[in-house]
């Protein structure tokens, strides 16, 4: 135990307290920094390790030693928050896609296609009850104009869906580019962290940055992170590796003809029904969650289903009107396909003009053409009719499902799907909020705590300084004895 060891103890106490104050300062400075994890000074009492013949019996330790600078974070809380956030992002994106579809073809009865179908049905009905020649031309032309309106709207809705498909393709490209950039930066940080840790220094801030990037990457693709011993991480999207150690791979988005036919399609020529795929370094990757997955699902599934529904409605409209209109002798069809193939929402068009279509049996040359037989039949095809039991000699009749019923079914399904997509998004965002609150609870900075720590370190510093002064005075007294 030397005379000067007390001074050394005080010095170590001073520097420990100072490091404490600096760390507290760093925490306070980053109280509002996104993704910052608070740090804590780890210190322990230093024990004087003495052996041999000069060992003294009653000696205090020789002060305090700083053993490390811990980054306070909980791996489980971080992983959960990351996963929930990716799920929330996916559901929010999906809800956005559904909402756009609803805006394009949704219906509440007063707006949308159902209003035009009602107008058309009403025009057919008025034509059906047109008795003579007064106003007949007007009634006929109303049927043709309103049919044209319905055709235009169906074709327009199809065009809007195709437009959304293109948008989603672009969105997927953008997201893939973002993910590629992030992956590059993660790889760079991996290098930085590995080298910093190898030199024995603290890489806490770099790790915070990397965690932030990993959160973003997970929000995009639902990526999975595997930690390695040297401090680096590997990142996987589905089963494809996007970051391994110091290296990263790019994400690319492409179109192929269908799920089975992998022939590539030029992005400009892609239509609903083609499939958007993501590849990482040439290998097909399937995002697990996140915005990119929602975008792919939206293009490959949601829009494909909606277009199929719209096509099915166009087919039903065509079949039902034509069947009612065709009669005997068969005449030209009322609705036809523009390209000769079976009718779809894109190719629906009118096969008649104001002059060429007929509403009654017989021909115009032969008077006897005011019974409006066909007009009434088409009107019923729109409205449908309830089933009727047999009465007397009249045979029983099955219920007729009207064209308006067909559209209503589709519109109702769309409303239900959009609503549940919205509900899922809301729920997922609540869950994500809670789990990121748990993570922030562990890693976030509490100012009260930091202030308390600051006061404690300040006191420790003052006291250590006092110890130093006292030691100094004692030594002074000793030195003054010698004259």
């Amino acid at each position, binding site marked *: 135990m030397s005379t000067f060891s007390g001074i050394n103890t005080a010095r170590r106490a001073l520097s420990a307290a100072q490091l404490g104050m600096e760390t507290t300062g760093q925490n306070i400075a980053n109280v509002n920094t996104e993704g910052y994890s608070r740090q804590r000074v780890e210190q322990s009492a230093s024990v004087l390790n003495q052996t041999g013949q000069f060992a003294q019996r009653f000696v205090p330790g020789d002060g305090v030693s700083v053993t490390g600078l811990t980054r306070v974070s909980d791996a489980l809380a971080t992983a959960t928050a990351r996963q929930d956030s990716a799920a929330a992002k996916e559901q929010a994106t999906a809800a956005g896609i559904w909402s756009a579809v609803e805006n394009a073809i949704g219906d509440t009865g007063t707006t949308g296609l159902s209003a035009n179908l009602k107008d058309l049905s009403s025009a057919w009905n008025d034509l059906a009850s047109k008795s003579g020649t007064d106003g007949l031309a007007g009634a006929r032309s109303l049927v043709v104009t309103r049919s044209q309106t319905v055709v235009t709207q169906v074709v327009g809705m199809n065009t809007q869906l195709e437009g959304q498909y293109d948008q989603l393709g672009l969105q997927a490209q953008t997201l893939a580019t973002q993910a590629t950039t992030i992956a590059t930066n993660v790889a760079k940080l991996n290098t930085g962290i590995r080298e910093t840790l190898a030199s024995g220094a603290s890489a806490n801030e770099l790790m915070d940055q990397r965690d932030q990037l990993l959160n973003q990457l997970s929000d995009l693709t639902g990526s999975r992170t595997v930690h390695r011993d040297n401090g680096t991480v590997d990142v996987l999207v589905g089963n494809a590796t996007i970051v391994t150690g110091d290296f990263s791979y790019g994400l690319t988005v492409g179109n192929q003809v269908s799920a089975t036919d992998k022939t590539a399609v030029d992005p400009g020529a892609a239509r609903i029904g083609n499939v958007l795929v993501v590849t990482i370094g040439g290998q097909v990757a399937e995002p697990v969650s996140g915005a990119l997955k929602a975008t792919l699902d939206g293009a490959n599934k949601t829009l494909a289903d909606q277009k199929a529904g719209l096509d099915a409605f166009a087919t039903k409209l065509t079949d039902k009107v034509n069947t009612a209109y065709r009669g005997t002798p068969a005449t030209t069809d009322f609705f036809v396909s523009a390209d000769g193939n079976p009718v779809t929402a894109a190719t629906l068009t009118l096969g008649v003009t104001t002059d060429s279509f007929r509403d009654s049996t017989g021909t115009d040359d032969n*008077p006897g053409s005011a019974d409006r037989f066909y007009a009434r039949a088409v009107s019923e095809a729109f409205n449908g009719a309830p089933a009727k039991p047999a009465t007397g000699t009249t045979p029983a009749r099955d219920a007729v499902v009207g064209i308006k019923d067909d559209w209503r079914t589709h519109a109702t399904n769309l409303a239900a799907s959009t609503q549940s997509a919205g509900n899922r998004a809301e729920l997922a965002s609540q869950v994500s909020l809670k789990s990121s609150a748990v993570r922030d609870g562990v890693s976030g900075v509490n100012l009260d705590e930091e202030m308390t720590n600051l006061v404690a370190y300040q006191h420790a510093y003052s006291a250590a300084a006092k110890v130093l002064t006292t030691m100094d005075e004692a030594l002074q007294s000793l030195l003054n004895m010698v004259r």
Partner: protein
Amino acid sequence: MLGRVTQRSIATNALANLQNTQTRMAKLQDQITSGTSLPKGSTDSVRAAAALRLNDQIAVNTENGRNLDEARAWMTTQEPALQSTTNALQKIRELAVRAGNGALNETGRDAIAKEILALKETILGDANTPYQGRAVFAGTRDTTTAFAPDASATAAPRYSSSDDGGSLLRTISPGVTMTVNISGDSVYGGSITVFDELDDLAENVSRGNTTAVAGALSTIDKRITGATNAMAVIGARTNQLDHAEEVNANQLAYLEAQLDDVQGVDPAKAYVEFTQQNVAYQAALQVTAKTVQTSLLDFLR
């Protein structure tokens, strides 16, 4: 609550909660200002399905309402014509009875014959009653005359009928149709038309052929029966229309009330809810202002 609370987590939670309250307030405000609680199908898909169905049903109801009006117009066009025909036939019958007793001189018989011919023209006018540019008694044809004299014919039948015997149908409720026209042939036509019969009668009267005139009485009676029967049919159909119109109007009122329930806004209820949300929002703002502001710093010196 969570294990550890920080200033930032308080702020985040406070923001999220304020956001939620504001969203609810915006929803209510939207309802009150737009007057509909169903701006989009996804707001409530169950109510949206009901709104779509009710809107379609109201449209069908309106269509049928117009068809009922149309059918009623047919009734009110045909009934006076048939009534006038019946009156004219009865008058002719009286004239024929007077002419049949043989007590009249030639001048008197000629006067009666002329009157019969004049009444025949009245009946011919009735038989060609127009509606919407066509003759009502011509079946399903849109010709302007149902019965016309054939100028080239020298012997009976001198009149031809355009009635094709077809039924004009109007849909009066979903899947239910009603015949609106009376067959012209059943009243005015037959193997020979009533006009040929009346021409013959007038000729027999002016010739003083009392046997033939007496024989014609049964023919006129048959015509009168035909016309009154047709009027009875119209009466029955009018009753059916009255009933159908009442049902249709009641149903429309019911459907519209339902639709209002589904997509309408109860302003009082919405306003009370809005006030409640507003109070909650104010409270949340105050509490947040207090908690976010304070920290240990306020008490250290």
